[in-house]
């Protein structure tokens, strides 16, 4: 496995550190407790336990976009869900320099602390907008939700902020008080991004944001993401099975297969000179 070396200054501390994240569903047994045990894809052949994540580690440096690729069921979304506390992993740690200087494992925090961290440090955009939005509430309320959660009790302030975010993501302001249910898929996705940005989070987690969108809308969303990185210097973790998206956005990429990170490195290197058999297959089939 390769290690990223040059892009991020080695002196700089990572903004987000994920270490040995493991997430399994099932009783587990002595066989699959071994971290190098050979599984049937991600399932233990003896006890049937599903190992959705196996010792996944990740570093995200300030202002960097990390790509995660892999086939369906390889654990990409589970990884995202674990990082933003939607899913409690079996073991592992997530730390960020923004909380207690990186000395505290976020996964061990109280639910209240987790909620506060989620509302201020992470912005999450789900693959399925129905998970991230309240479809019956207006777009503006959806954006305000995060601000209300972090203690804002001023309607006008939230309205102004909401409108400016909607403008940033190119949603006509006359649609601001319409519910996302009535929006197209691309618009819903952009409302989600606006919602995720409402509290100016330093870390954005984007799970398959462009999947299912037509090409022109895809281009708009990708454009927006790049603009956010340029203007706001937001760090991002971008999950996609679309290598073109990864190539466009990410500086470094991790390739996941059956819950494991099988290859990690600079995006160009991985796409031009894949080492692992699966990555080679992936790159060849898609490019």
């Amino acid at each position, binding site marked *: 496995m390769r290690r990223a070396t040059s892009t991020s200054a080695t002196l700089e501390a990572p903004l987000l550190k994920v270490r040995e994240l493991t997430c399994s569903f099932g009783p587990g047994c002595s066989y699959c407790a071994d971290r190098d045990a050979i599984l049937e894809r991600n399932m233990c052949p003896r006890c049937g336990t599903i190992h959705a994540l196996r010792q996944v580690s990740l570093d995200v440096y300030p202002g960097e976009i990390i790509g995660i690729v892999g086939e369906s069921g390889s654990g990409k979304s589970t990884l995202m869900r674990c990082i933003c506390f939607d899913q409690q992993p079996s073991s592992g740690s997530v730390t960020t320099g923004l909380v207690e200087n990186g000395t505290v494992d976020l996964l061990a925090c109280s639910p209240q602390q987790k*909620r506060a961290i989620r509302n201020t440090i992470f912005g999450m955009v789900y693959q399925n907008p129905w998970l991230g939005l309240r479809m019956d509430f207006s777009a503006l*309320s959806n954006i305000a939700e995060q601000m*209300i*959660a972090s203690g804002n*009790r001023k*309607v006008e302030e*939230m309205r102004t902020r909401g409108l400016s975010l909607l403008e940033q993501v190119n949603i006509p302001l006359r649609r601001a*008080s319409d519910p996302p249910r009535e929006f197209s898929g691309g618009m819903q996705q952009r409302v989600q991004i606006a919602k995720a940005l409402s509290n100016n989070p330093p870390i954005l987690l984007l799970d398959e944001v462009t999947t299912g969108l037509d090409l022109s809308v895809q281009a708009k969303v990708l454009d927006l993401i790049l603009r956010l990185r340029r203007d706001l210097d937001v760090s991002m973790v971008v999950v996609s099975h679309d290598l073109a998206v990864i190539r466009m956005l990410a500086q470094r990429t991790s390739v996941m297969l059956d819950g494991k990170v099988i290859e990690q490195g600079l995006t160009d290197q991985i796409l031009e000179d894949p080492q692992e058999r699966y990555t080679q297959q992936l790159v060849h089939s898609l490019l």
Partner: protein
Amino acid sequence: MRQLYNFAFFDEGSKREIRRAILKGIAIPGYQVPFASREMPIGRGWGTGGLQITLAIIGRDEVLKVIDQGHDGSVNAVNIKKLICATTGVALTEDTAAASLIQSRHRIPEEPLSEQQVLVLQVPTPEPLRDIEAREQVTQRLHAEADYTGAWLGLFEQVVRYGSATTGADHPVLVNGRYVMAPSPIPRLDNHKLDHVANLTLLGAGREKKIYAVPPYTSVKSLDFEDYPFVTETFEGRECRVCGAKGVYFDELVDEASGKTYHQCNDTNYCHKRQLERRQFEEQQSERRQLGTQQPAAQQLGDSDTGAEPLEAQHPEMPLERQQPAAQQPAAQQHEKRQPRLIAPEVTA
């Protein structure tokens, strides 16, 4: 005496279970305590929650008042009174001040209650976060973590869409700085009658199987935004056509003859009392007019104070009417009889 039912309908074990839930509710203001809501001889959704609380705490020397949307004589109230009376034989009253136990649906009486009184409210939907989150498991967790984003979000949505909070009733409140609670569908005008008041308020939801409480002198704050503060319904420029009251909750009625709308106090007992007061005052005035100017002016003034004094200062002189639930009489007529009687529980056969 042959009794078909145990005192207050329930067996003692049931009463104890409900009382335990009530005590827990009082200990944790605003927290919804689950309880084993029982089958009642009235349908769920018709006040069974309040009724179960009333039956669990009622004693033989209780004086009971039951109101439905401010009215002592409406069907729901009368039926509940009948049931309670038939199984307990307690005294009934329509006089808010005379009652020791008041069960109400969707209103809190206009007259302030005292430390000796208990108010029981019937609740259809006890969960203030239900509109935001349909799953009970999740709302319980949100309460546990005091995550009330959803309650505020609902209000924000109303402000965004309609320019102001549009909760006609059941405006969510924060109890004791901890739990967000549905105050039952009382009008917003009644919310302040829960805040730091002398009486104990018990809320029961029979269908949803929840009991919760606001103990005396507990802070109850209506949720609002800094720039959109909580406002009550306004009835500016309107007054009760019958008693002339202002600033209370009104019913809007249509005068069939002229086709015009007019307003009348929603709280019937309050209205009757004021009518009586007014009549007394007018009688006194006319008596005095007949007597001429023989009395010194100062005493005349002092005597006439009664008309302007608040109700509660007067109530010791008010007649405490006692009546059988089956024989409902218009309260105005009763007041005319004006024969103070002692209230004693009657044993029903």
